C-alpha cells in the first residue's frame, strides 16, 4: 500500500513535470528562473513587430499630457532585440527617433536623432533609471526582457484578475538600475505578466504596473492592450495604450541603422 502511494506520488510528480516543466526546480531560485525561462520561451519567434503606443501622463492634480509613439522591433536569436522608437507627439519632438540595440549582458547601444539639427547623437545607456519622456516609465521598464538581466526567486502563488499567478522576485544584475528588486505576477496558464511591483534603491515600494486586456496574436503571442503605471511616492501615473500591433511584417536588420533612424516616420 505504502509502495503504491509512493508510486502514485511519483507519477503525479512526473505528470506535473510534463505540464509545467518547472517541478524539477527545487530551490526558490531555480523555480523563479524556470518560470522566467518559460515566459521568455513562450514569446519566442515573433521575428519582428510594429505597434503604436499612446502615453497618457497624469500628475497628482489630474493634469494630463499625451505622447504618441511608434515602435518597431526586431527579434535576434543570439543577442537582445533591436528597436526603433519614433515620436509623433508632443509635436515639438515630432520626428525625433531613438535606436537601441539591447544586449543581455552589458550596456545597450543607443542613438538619438534630433530632426531640427539633423543630428544623430550616441547616448550613454547607463541612464536606465531616468524617466522616459517625462512619464512614470523608466527607460529600463521599456527595454526588452532578457533572462540575463536579473536573478530570480520564486515567492509563491497568488490569485489575481481571476487567474492563478506565480510570484517571482527579480533582482537586477546591472548596478545602474533604479531598482533593488521587482516582484512579478505571471499567470500559470499562459505565462503572461499581470502585475509588477517596483522597489526603489531604498527598497521601498515605488511603482506598480498592471497589464490590462491581453490579446493573442498569430495564435501565440500575448500582448496587453493597456498598461497602467502608478507611482506610489509622487502620486503621478502613466497609462500606455497599444494599438495596431503587427507581427512578422518583414522588417530587416537594415531597418535598424543610422540611415533608417534619420529617415523613419
Amino acid at each position, binding site marked *: 500500500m505504502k509502495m503504491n502511494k509512493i508510486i502514485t506520488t511519483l507519477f503525479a510528480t512526473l505528470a506535473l513535470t510534463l505540464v509545467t516543466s518547472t517541478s524539477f526546480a527545487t530551490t526558490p531560485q531555480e523555480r523563479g528562473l524556470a518560470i522566467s525561462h518559460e515566459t521568455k520561451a513562450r514569446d519566442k519567434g515573433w521575428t519582428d513587430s510594429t505597434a503604436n503606443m499612446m502615453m497618457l501622463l497624469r500628475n497628482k492634480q489630474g493634469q494630463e499630457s499625451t505622447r504618441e509613439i511608434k515602435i518597431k522591433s526586431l527579434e535576434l536569436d543570439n543577442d537582445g532585440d533591436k528597436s526603433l522608437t519614433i515620436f509623433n507627439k508632443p509635436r515639438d519632438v515630432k520626428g525625433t527617433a531613438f535606436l537601441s540595440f539591447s544586449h543581455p549582458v552589458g550596456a545597450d547601444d543607443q542613438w538619438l536623432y534630433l530632426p531640427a539639427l539633423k543630428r544623430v547623437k*550616441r547616448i550613454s545607456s547607463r541612464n536606465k533609471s531616468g524617466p522616459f519622456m517625462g512619464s512614470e516609465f523608466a527607460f529600463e521598464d521599456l527595454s526588452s526582457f532578457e533572462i540575463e538581466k536579473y536573478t530570480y526567486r520564486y515567492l509563491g502563488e497568488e490569485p489575481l484578475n481571476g487567474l492563478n499567478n506565480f510570484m517571482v522576485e527579480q533582482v537586477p544584475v546591472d548596478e545602474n538600475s533604479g531598482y533593488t528588486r521587482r516582484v512579478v505576477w505571471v499567470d500559470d496558464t499562459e505565462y503572461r505578466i499581470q502585475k509588477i511591483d517596483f522597489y526603489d534603491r531604498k527598497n521601498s515600494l515605488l511603482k506598480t504596473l498592471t497589464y490590462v486586456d491581453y490579446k493573442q496574436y498569430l495564435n501565440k503571442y500575448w500582448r496587453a492592450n493597456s498598461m497602467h503605471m502608478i507611482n506610489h511616492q509622487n502620486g503621478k501615473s502613466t497609462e500606455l495604450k497599444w494599438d495596431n500591433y503587427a507581427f512578422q511584417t518583414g522588417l530587416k536588420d537594415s531597418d535598424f541603422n543610422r540611415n533608417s533612424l534619420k529617415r523613419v516616420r
Partner: protein
Amino acid sequence: MSVKKNLKGLTASLLLTPYLLLSSYLLSKGLQANEFEVSGKVGIEQRQFFSSNQYEHQFNQSQVSIFIEPELYWNWNEGSDSLTFKPFYRLDQQDDNRSHGDIREFSYIHASDNWELRAGIRKEFWGVTEFQHLVDVINQTDSVEDIDGEDKLGQLMLNLSLVRDWGIVDLYILPGFRERTFGDEKSRLRAPFIIDTDHIEYESSAKEQHVDLVARWSHSLGDVDFGTYWFHGTNRDPIINLKQQDNGIVLGQYYSQMDQFGLELQMIVEDWLWKFETIYRDTKFEHFWATQSGFEYSFIGVFDSAIDLGLLMEYSWDSRGEGRVGNRDKRGASFQNDVFFGSRLAFNDMQSSEVLVGFSADLDHNAFSFLVEANRRLGDNFKASIDIRLFQSNNPIDQLYSIKNDDHAQLSVEWYF
C-alpha cells in the same frame, strides 16, 4: 537685397523641377499606399539688448521677429520613397537682411536595403562636440538667424549612401553654392563694417555653380562612433575684403576653393562621453589644422530627483593662432586657444524643461562669453525659450570685441502644428 535672395531661392527651386517631375511620377505610381502629412512651427521672438548700439545706424534696444517653417511630407511604397518640402520665412522688425526666406528642405529619398539615394535641397549635420561645429561642412551658415552657427541654409545635393558591414559610405555631389547671410547696417551682433551682400567674388571661374564633391565614411564599433570625410569645393567661410566704391569703402566677400579632411570621434566610457573633432583645410591662401575636443559627464537623477545633470568641457585649438589687427596675412582664428565650460540640466518633467549654462574664455587674450538657454513646453503644442548671452572683450583682435555691447536676452514662443 532680400528680393534678390528670394529670386535665388526661386532659381534653386527651378533647378529642382526634374526631381519634382520624377517624384510626381513616382507618387502617381505608388498612390495605393501613400501617406501625406503637414506639420511645422510658427514663432515669435523678441531680443532685448542691454546696452545701446556700438556703431552708427544700428538699432538701439529691441528687435521683434516672427517666423514660419511648415513641413509637407509624402511617402509611398511603404515608406521606401518619400518627399519632404520645408520652406522657411522670417520677418524681422529691424534688420532687412534678417527678413529672409529659404527652402530648408525639398528632397526626395529612395531607400533600399543597403543603399539610399537622396536628391534635392537638404541639410546634413556632422560632428559630436557642442560649442563649436568644426567638421560640419556641407551647409552654409544662415548667420542672420543666430550667432551660434547652428542655423543652416538648404544645400542642393545628390547623395548616395551605402550601408556595409564596415560602416556607412556617403558620396555627395553638391551643385550650386549658397553665400553666407549677413545682417544689414541696422543689425546688432555684427562687425563694425557692413558686409556687402552684392560684392561676391569666387576663386573658381564657375563661381557659385562650382560642383563640390564629398566622400564620407562613418561607423560604430562598440562604444566608439567615428566619421571621416574629404571635401573638395567652395569654402563656406568667406574672406572679407575691403572694396573701394564710389560711395566709400565696402566689405566684399571672397569664396576660395578648398580641400578639407575631417574626422569626428566619440567614445562612451561609463558616464563619460569623450568627444573629438579635427579638420585640415587647404586653400590658396592658407592651410591649417584645427581641433575641438572635450567631454560630457552625466549625473543621472541628482539629489534623489528625476533631474539629470551633465557637465561639459571643451577645448579649441587652431594652428593659425591669434590674428593681428590690420595684418592681412595674419588673420588668425577665433577659436585658437579657447576653453568652454557648460552644464546642462534636464528636468525630465511633463514639460521637458531644460537649462543649459555655458561659459567660454580665450586663453591668449581678454575675451569671455556667457550664455543661458532655457526652454519648456507649454501645454501640448507650445514651447517657450529664454536665451541670455553676455560678451566681454577689450582686445580688438577678438571677434567678441565687435559685439561687446550686444549683451542680450531673447524670449521666444513657438507653436507647433
